């Protein structure tokens, strides 16, 4: 279960809301308009178990999210859930990977400090000895054109 965001971690002017995390309870979050640009040449990588609990993060994940590795491991991946992301996107993600297929999409992620960053994410099921044991998510730099399309599209999906 995710605890609420802490006001002392937030940088800049913020808004607050409560997110329904669908099966992981709800979470009070604070979010700002401060964007961190995706770093050139890097991949943000994480793995989760079948329930979406984080089991591995790489250094870029830590740097971009603002959380420490200890704060991330064992938490639901929805720790990054931003209120501007429509739940339909995540439903599509889970429906796709549960069919054993790759999912790809553009995602606005929430940082520990209330800021955000856009990614192009690809999620695949980790199949070992014929069984799904978890999921790997790899994010890369999205083009500004695609981000702008999502900024127009996503509010229409609520």
């Amino acid at each position, binding site marked *: 279960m995710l605890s609420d965001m802490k006001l002392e971690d937030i940088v800049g002017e913020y808004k607050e809301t409560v997110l329904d995390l669908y099966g992981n309870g709800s979470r009070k979050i604070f979010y700002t308009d401060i964007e961190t640009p*995706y770093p*050139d*040449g*890097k*991949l943000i*990588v994480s*793995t989760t178990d079948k329930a979406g609990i984080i089991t591995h993060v*790489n250094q870029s994940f830590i740097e971009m999210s603002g959380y420490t590795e200890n704060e991330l491991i064992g938490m639901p991946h929805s720790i990054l859930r931003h209120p501007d992301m429509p739940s339909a996107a995540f439903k599509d993600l889970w429906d796709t990977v549960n069919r054993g297929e*790759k999912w*790809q999409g553009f995602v606005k992620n929430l940082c520990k400090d209330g800021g955000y960053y856009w990614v*192009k994410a*690809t*999620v*695949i099921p*980790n199949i*070992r000895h014929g069984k799904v044991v978890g999921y*790997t*998510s*790899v994010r*890369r*730099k*999205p*083009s*500004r*054109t*695609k981000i702008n399309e999502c900024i127009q599209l996503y509010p229409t999906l609520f």
Partner: protein
Amino acid sequence: MSYTFTVSPDFSPDHLSGWYIFNTWLQRQSGEAIHLELYDNFQAQRDAIQANKIDLIYANPFDAAMLVREKGFLPLVRAWNISDEAIIAVSADSPVNDVAELLPGINVAVTEDPDVHTIGMIMLEAGDLDASNINTRFYNSQVLIAKSLLQGEADVGIFLAKAFDDLSNLTKKQLKILVRSQISVIHHSLMIGPALAGRRDEIQALLLAMNNDDKGKSVLNSLGFDAWIKVEDEEMEFMIDLMDTLII
């Protein structure tokens, strides 16, 4: 019985003799007859793998999925402190300073090296470029990619980062790096096929101990390596999954 060892065709020409020296070392240490077979291109090598002609391979990460999941290969080791990274570069006098400024229709110079090509294309994606809106020109070496930029045949080059760093200073001064990947977890690996799998632990131990004596060290140096480190099965599976996410 003789076994066949092969090396990913993207090896540096400087290390050609090194791979023969390594093969001789491996035969002596393992007591197995091993023939080194080098292929001119990736397709010829993949055909040989599909025909079950290969028992040991220093493999490009792009081919790891096929080797492990279709042909039953297992990882042994990888070179310490070496990962496959790519660089996107243009001519130094190009007005472009960022991938986002590149326009559709440009000529992109690449080698056949599949993992570097994949990583490079991902970095170009940030500029809304993909295989459908660029002209891809294949060259036989990283030096020829540099020449293509300097001669204006290509607008952008995708280099193996190590090969770019090894270009002469004169050439590098005439080029401009737009972006360098920092992925760290994509690497070539030495892998063992089903026919030799019974000796996996033994051969792995020989390789891991290679930097402990002068002879082994000198063989490693002829390959441009300092040491081998063990690749666990799950580490290989992780890299295969990661490569899989990059291919679409």
